[in-house]
């Protein structure tokens, strides 16, 4: 078996020993397997890249819509979103009326919490070079989108403190998950009325 062979590699032995040592230090039950190893603080920092709705993970840095417009042009965003954010061929980033709104993509003003906009821009844009944007650039682009959708002023600076406080106007459209869901229950929605 493959693991029988690999188990005797020195690195794995060391990892196993470390796991046992850290396990003992933490006082865990004997029933644990002890496979894997403790993550270093640096590894945890590097893995912690998702920003939640409350913005607790927002990094230092800042930007406003004026800077955002410059970043937008400089990073090639108009290639997909058009010079005014609405021409396509990618998703329109500004839409005023609900009517005519695509149900597959809808613009940032309909998102429930503002820190989520920062999260997606930083993790997944630009489409063909995801991950190249700095935190400052991501704040600036977030500010640009919020401003063009009429949610903040052009000079308003977005940072870890101000971004979570932006009021999102369509929050009430967002259906929260069912709080008491358990496996093995019939589905709460889309079950037809008999």
């Amino acid at each position, binding site marked *: 078996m493959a693991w029988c062979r690999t188990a005797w590699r020195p690195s794995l032995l060391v990892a196993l020993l470390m796991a046992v040592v850290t396990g003992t230090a933490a006082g865990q039950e004997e029933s644990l397997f002890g496979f894997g190893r403790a993550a270093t603080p640096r590894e945890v920092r590097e893995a912690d890249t998702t920003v939640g709705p409350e913005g607790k993970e927002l990094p230092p840095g800042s930007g406003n819509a004026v800077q955002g417009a410059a970043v937008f042009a400089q990073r090639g965003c108009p290639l997909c979103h058009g010079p005014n954010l609405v021409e396509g061929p990618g998703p329109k980033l500004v839409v005023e009326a609900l009517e005519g709104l695509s*149900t597959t993509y809808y613009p*940032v003003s309909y998102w429930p919490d503002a820190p989520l906009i920062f999260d997606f821009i930083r993790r997944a844009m630009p489409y063909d070079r995801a991950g190249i944007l700095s935190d400052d650039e991501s704040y600036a682009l977030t500010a640009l989108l919020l401003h063009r959708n009429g949610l903040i002023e052009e000079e308003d600076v977005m940072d870890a403190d101000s971004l979570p406080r932006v009021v999102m106007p369509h929050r009430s459209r967002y259906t929260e998950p069912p709080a008491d869901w358990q496996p093995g229950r019939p589905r709460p929605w889309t079950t037809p009325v008999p």
Partner: protein
Amino acid sequence: MSAKQSSRRKFLRNSAALAGLAATPAGLAVAPRTASGQTRVAGAVPDMNAMEYVLYGARSRFVTTTRILEGHGHYEDDRPKPNPYRPSAGTPIRDLVGIITPSSLHFATQHHYGIPEINPSEHRLTIHGMVDRPMVFTVDDLKRFPASSKIYFLECLGNRARPTDKNVNETNGRMACSEWTGVPLSMLLKEAGVKNGASWIVAEAAEAGHHTKSVPMAKVMDDVLVAYGQNGEPIRPDHGFPLRLLVPGFEGIYNVKWLKTIKVVDQPYKTFQERSRFMGADRRSRHFIYELGPKSVITFPSGEDHLPEHGTYTITGLAWSGGGAVRRVEVSTDGGQTWTDAKLRGPALKRAFTRFDLVWKWKGEEAVLQSRCTDELDQVQPSVAEFARFWNKTESEFLRTGATSFGHVNIIQPWKVATNGLVQNGLET
């Protein structure tokens, strides 16, 4: 050059030339497909005694089924496609037998950010957040845990039939069923020690766009897997090599491929796929519907089939439900006036495809074939009218807008058999 190499090269050359005929504007080479899989591919003569096929088997050259290219992904109109443009491909359900989908024919949608190449010996799974001991696991570490192997279906929440769909590949191509092998995530979380108050996890992928998805802890502790095996071999790159999350019965998008990070948290993180898309027909966003409904579809006879003569046919199809095991499948051949229980083939497994059969004598009359699934929670697959009524639409309104507006479409699929034996989609606006 040896004779073997020569023969292989000739095969590759011929295949390439053939594929070139079907090249798309995006430059994708696609082999021509036949619905029956019985068409001989001219010129391609692989030597089945060649060492390469002795070492890694290949299918007969008379079998040519491929995945089904989907034209537009999320670009439903004629706007220019994004660059790079990576189309989705569906499962050729029409050509498959049994309940297992070969990994190479398993649907693969929404690879907007491409399929990453990951060296498994360098890959790590990090578990952090609300845990006592943040942990790092190699793939070898994970293989040392007691494993679980289960047969589960995967279905995209957008797996829906439109009146314009010609065959069952088009109505139902975004679904598949495999045996998945991996470690229960609950076991890994026990190693890390979940803190009081933790109620969700956020799973993150290693691909360029870092797809993320929130999963409620009640589901994680029930049956979620960190999988490394699919149908007896390592998961294929387009399905998440070397690790993917398996969230049985939930929407396909929960099953995060190329899994690299799990953060334990106290609320849903409303990630991109949970906040910006999939607005319901009532213009409210519903991102946490979780399980897919009870559903079934007849795969034979189905759209574009032709019954050559009056006589006996075995109607067959697939049934499944995110809620658990399929308890019953009924089949109607008269447009829903009468229903007969079909025979369920093999054990009906929880959250897996279940194959059903019903022997039918066709005397040449016009017929409408339909199947209806009931699962172990007594959830029943709805008719078009029932589904439309739930969303306050008429049947016709629903069918006209259903192509883009609804997820979780689990309507009963009708196939119309004409007196001349031709079968076509029975959904009409």
